[in-house]
């Protein structure tokens, strides 16, 4: 009974998780990319050369400028520069490079006063050119606003709407789904009928209908919160149903009865023993549903009921690229926010898939299963 037994060092779930994660490079790439995007969003005022609403009426629909290292005289410059471009045809918005007017790219330049992370006052910007020249690495829009700056400021809205949204909707979904599944009976009936009601209305219609409840001309912060609230209100129902199912199947399981037999209260059993067992599902579902929120904001802003100009969001940037003319003449207005949305959504999906594989208990190795 007390024979010496070879003891294997305990493998913590963290270690198991990392071993599995390392096997899916796409998920790691997705995670790294998202980390970078969120870092850029946090530092947006510093990274962006201009404020999001700053216009240059002489430089509308400016195409993206290329970075150059070889000067007009053939010599090499370590500092990259962009060439000044001038509007030559007002009708077709054609710009022509001036091969002589070089605007060297300067780093850590003084510009508009900003607050980094909302608290750190500075007027330093990551890059810029000597005024009165302007740099448009990704072009400018119809008002002559820098697309890079708008993309960065827009990401503050577009990337956080998903995270804040799932925090709200998952709190609701876990709580209500947990209660419905664990207690059953009347609570279950009421909660499930509400979710059915929510799920039976087409979501786009519901979004627009809910948006109509709020006045159109709110301050942008309130509009932002309104959008999050609307998306979260729609998002919790599906999750609550899945959580209810998981809890229902778990309520009859031995370890829940065992926990009750040890004298734990019902809420403690739900919170400490039932819901943690749904966590691997919840983490994956959360990761996979963030793109839905990002796209939801895009839809609202695209329809003109989301984030209002002059505040930038990826959705209302796309809104500028609605016409055929924009697609053919100013493709960067579509491609830049489009690529950002595409990359973000793909990164979340890859990360979500990787997390699902890594958190799947059936894949766990190193123990007798």
């Amino acid at each position, binding site marked *: 009974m007390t024979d010496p*037994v070879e003891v294997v060092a305990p493998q913590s779930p963290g270690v198991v998780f990392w071993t599995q994660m390392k096997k899916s490079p796409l998920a790691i790439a997705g995670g790294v990319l998202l980390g970078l995007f969120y870092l850029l969003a946090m530092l947006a005022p510093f990274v962006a050369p201009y404020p999001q609403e700053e216009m240059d009426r002489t430089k509308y629909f400016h195409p993206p400028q290329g970075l150059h290292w070889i000067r007009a005289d053939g010599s090499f410059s370590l500092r990259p520069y962009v060439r000044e471009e001038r509007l030559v045809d007002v009708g077709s918005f054609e710009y022509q490079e001036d091969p002589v007017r070089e605007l060297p790219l300067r780093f850590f330049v003084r510009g508009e006063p900003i607050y980094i992370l909302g608290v750190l006052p500075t007027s330093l910007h990551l890059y810029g050119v000597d005024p009165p020249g302007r740099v448009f690495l990704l072009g400018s829009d119809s008002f002559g606003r820098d697309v890079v700056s708008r993309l960065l400021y827009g990401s503050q809205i577009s990337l956080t709407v998903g995270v804040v949204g799932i925090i709200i909707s998952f709190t609701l979904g876990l709580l209500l789904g947990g209660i419905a599944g664990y207690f059953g009976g009347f609570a279950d009936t009421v909660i499930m009928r509400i979710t059915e009601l929510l799920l039976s209305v087409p979501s786009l219609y519901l979004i627009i209908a809910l948006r109509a409840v709020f006045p159109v001309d709110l301050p942008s912060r309130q509009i932002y919160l309104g959008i999050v609230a609307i998306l979260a209100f729609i998002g919790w129902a599906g999750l609550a149903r899945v959580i209810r199912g998981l809890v229902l199947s778990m309520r009859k399981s031995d370890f829940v009865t065992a926990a*009750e037999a040890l*004298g734990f209260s019902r809420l403690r059993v739900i919170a400490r023993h039932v819901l943690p067992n749904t966590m691997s599902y919840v983490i994956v579902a959360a990761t996979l549903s963030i793109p839905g929120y990002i796209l939801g904001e895009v839809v609202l802003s695209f329809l003109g009921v989301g984030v209002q100009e002059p505040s930038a969001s990826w959705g209302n940037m796309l809104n500028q690229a609605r016409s055929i003319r924009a697609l053919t003449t100013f493709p960067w207005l579509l491609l830049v926010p489009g690529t950002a949305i595409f990359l973000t959504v793909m990164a979340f999906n890859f990360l979500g898939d990787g997390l699902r594989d890594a958190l799947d208990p059936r894949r766990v190795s190193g123990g*007798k299963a």
Partner: protein
Amino acid sequence: MDRPSFIVDRPSSADALLRVEDLKTYFYTDTAVIKAVDGVSFEVNAGETLAVVGESGSGKSVTALSILKLVASPPGRIVGGRILFKGRDLVNLSNAEMRAIRGKEISMIFQEPMTALNPVYTCGEQIIETLVLHEHLTRRDAKTRAIEMLDRVGIPAARQRVDEYPHQMSGGMRQRVMIAMALACKPAVVIADEPTTALDVTIQAQILELLGELQRELGMAVILITHDLGVVAETADRVAVMYAGQVVEYSNVLDTFTKPMHPYTAGLQASLPKLGEVVDRLRVIPGTVPNPARFPVGCRFHPRCPVMVEQCLQDPALESIDGAHLSRCWRAREIAARTLDPAPPPVKA
């Protein structure tokens, strides 16, 4: 295992540690009332082991869950009887009062160690949580106690194993962890619901031996729920044989095996293969366990009984036949006097 004989011959007493009287637990479904437990009585004292024996569906597990008031409600409900623990009737206690008893005074060991441990917590954590709740220990003290408990139940390298997850352990180890969890607060009564059914035979013996040791050490009463007559013979002091939600025979373990007074008990024993006996087929009790939604009238065993008479269409009572030896059979006295053989006839090939 030594078996003090004075316990079994003592007549029923009002001051028993745990005394179940005429317990009735029904399940109210849409179509029927299922009388899973329908008049179960027994008692158990400190240091004593009561075996509750019966086939699947005889109401053993529901009896166990009823004692802890863990029967899912709805649809289940305790509709009658008393559960006297240290003089208090558990049936009337509030949820909060019951929670203070569960795990602390009465605890339970489950059949499936694979599923009865929470997969997301370490084994130690689950013991620590119990100790913090009932003994109000600090987490650090609780962890020390948890390691002691794991060590006591024979887990090698308990100090390391305390941080392991259930999936990293074998079935036998997990059942030891379950036992450590159930006994962490030194309860007065432990209900073991088929604690060895899911384990290998060699591990079964070890686990039973461990339970016996701990029982002597802590002086607890054990209610052992099983369908394994071998386990009963080895560990029990007293036996309650259950059939169709009722106790049909209640006696000390020796009498159960040497002079059964109910045809069902006799049938169970006859259906066990005996070493050295050469038979074409094993003896069986003909028929099947009745549907709990529609029990037969009268004695619930009568459709399967080899010695059934007309009187069996009326309800027999669980009566004392010979001192503390109780049986729920009209013909128990004939069986006791050995004028009637209640065993089922051998099956003709």
